[in-house]
């Protein structure tokens, strides 16, 4: 009951700030803006290349790692049960660090802290596989990232980063993704930028990739200096994007052009 009041109070306070977001009824996933062939690729688990990484992730979940010689499964059991809905709540607040962490960072925190194993490098095959496996367990779950009141200043920072104009083209994310979605940019539709499907198989990459990879690619695209993988700015952007997509279902691993 107390939690519900807290959430309600927060929503009332935050409501004016959220006014700029696309209303839930008008939110469209990038899936709706793709052609039928690419959609068919995503829909069929035996045709979706992202599922190849999910297979790897399942194997990694069950294999022992690090000096502790434990597997994720040893603490977390069957991921199908224990990890259900988790990806929909990330990035989440980490009490020790006092800031949000994304799913990749959470996996590495567990590896270092509990398995005494080396952290997996960003965009490495193993980290992508584990993230894909976890995200797939949340398929269909409604995104609820950013509700925690402790995350409020970080969501605000993320919004600032989304709005600010930057780079040689002096563009902000919002210029395309809030103001011009569904128009086209060089043959592709401009999406509303809801990260409902990450990590996803991007045809341009011919590989599975993370949301941070996509953000860095976009930021380079507007001719600005992209933040390094794991940078707080990227996590804040991820957090803002996920909270901006709140209510939309997870569709990982998605396929995108």
């Amino acid at each position, binding site marked *: 009951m107390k939690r519900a009041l807290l959430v309600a109070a927060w929503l009332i306070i935050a409501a004016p700030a959220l006014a700029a977001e696309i209303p839930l009824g008008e939110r469209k996933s990038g899936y709706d803006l793709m052609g039928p062939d690419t959609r*068919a690729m995503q829909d069929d688990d035996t045709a979706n290349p992202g599922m190849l990484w999910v297979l790897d992730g399942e194997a990694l979940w069950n294999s022992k790692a690090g000096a502790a010689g434990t597997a994720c499964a040893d603490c977390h059991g069957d991921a199908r049960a224990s990890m259900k809905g988790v990806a929909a709540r990330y990035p989440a607040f980490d009490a020790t660090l006092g800031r949000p962490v994304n799913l990749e960072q959470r996996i590495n925190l567990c590896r270092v802290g509990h398995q005494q194993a080396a952290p997996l490098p960003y965009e490495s095959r193993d980290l992508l596989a584990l993230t894909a496996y976890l995200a797939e367990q949340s398929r269909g779950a409604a995104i609820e990232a950013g509700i925690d009141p402790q995350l409020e200043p970080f969501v605000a920072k993320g919004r600032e980063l989304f709005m600010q104009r930057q780079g040689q083209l002096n563009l902000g994310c919002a210029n395309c993704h809030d103001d011009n979605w569904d128009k086209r940019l060089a043959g592709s539709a401009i999406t509303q930028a809801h990260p409902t499907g990450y990590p996803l198989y991007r045809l341009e990459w011919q590989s599975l990739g993370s949301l941070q990879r996509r953000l860095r690619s976009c930021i380079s695209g507007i001719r600005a200096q992209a933040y390094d993988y794991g940078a707080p700015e990227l996590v804040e952007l991820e957090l803002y994007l996920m909270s901006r997509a709140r209510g939309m279902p997870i569709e990982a691993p998605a396929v995108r052009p």
Partner: protein
Amino acid sequence: MDRETSRRAFLMGAAAGLGLGAVITVVPVHATPKEMEDAVRKVVGSARVTKGRVTLELPPLSENGNTVPLTVSIESPMTPADHVRAIHVFTELNPQPDVVSFRFGPRAGHARVSTRIRLANTQTVTAGGELSDGSCWAASAAVVVTLAACLEDA
């Protein structure tokens, strides 16, 4: 020596004569329609290729040239007496003309395959089919390929 090779040989000779041999290198970035014809010939031999009977399904505008869905089929009873032996796919402007060759027998049921191909440019894709009676058929389809809007730094 066909025209293209002899032209190259002439240029190299001229360049060498001018002491520019090290500077001028002619590297083909893509095949030519003639090279595609040669590739088709290599596969079907001297059989006459007739337009028709092959159905080539490709999106007219691809979402990304790295992965273009393609379905190729030939209507056939697929009996031991009358079936499709093979279907070959070619492009005219990729770095090399061959894309894939599929081989069937009477057990196939349908002479129909779907796959995903790479197209380097806007171009025409050609599919050729060989039937058990030795006849060869072909069909083509054009696909528009655009670059992605924002390319990554490596």
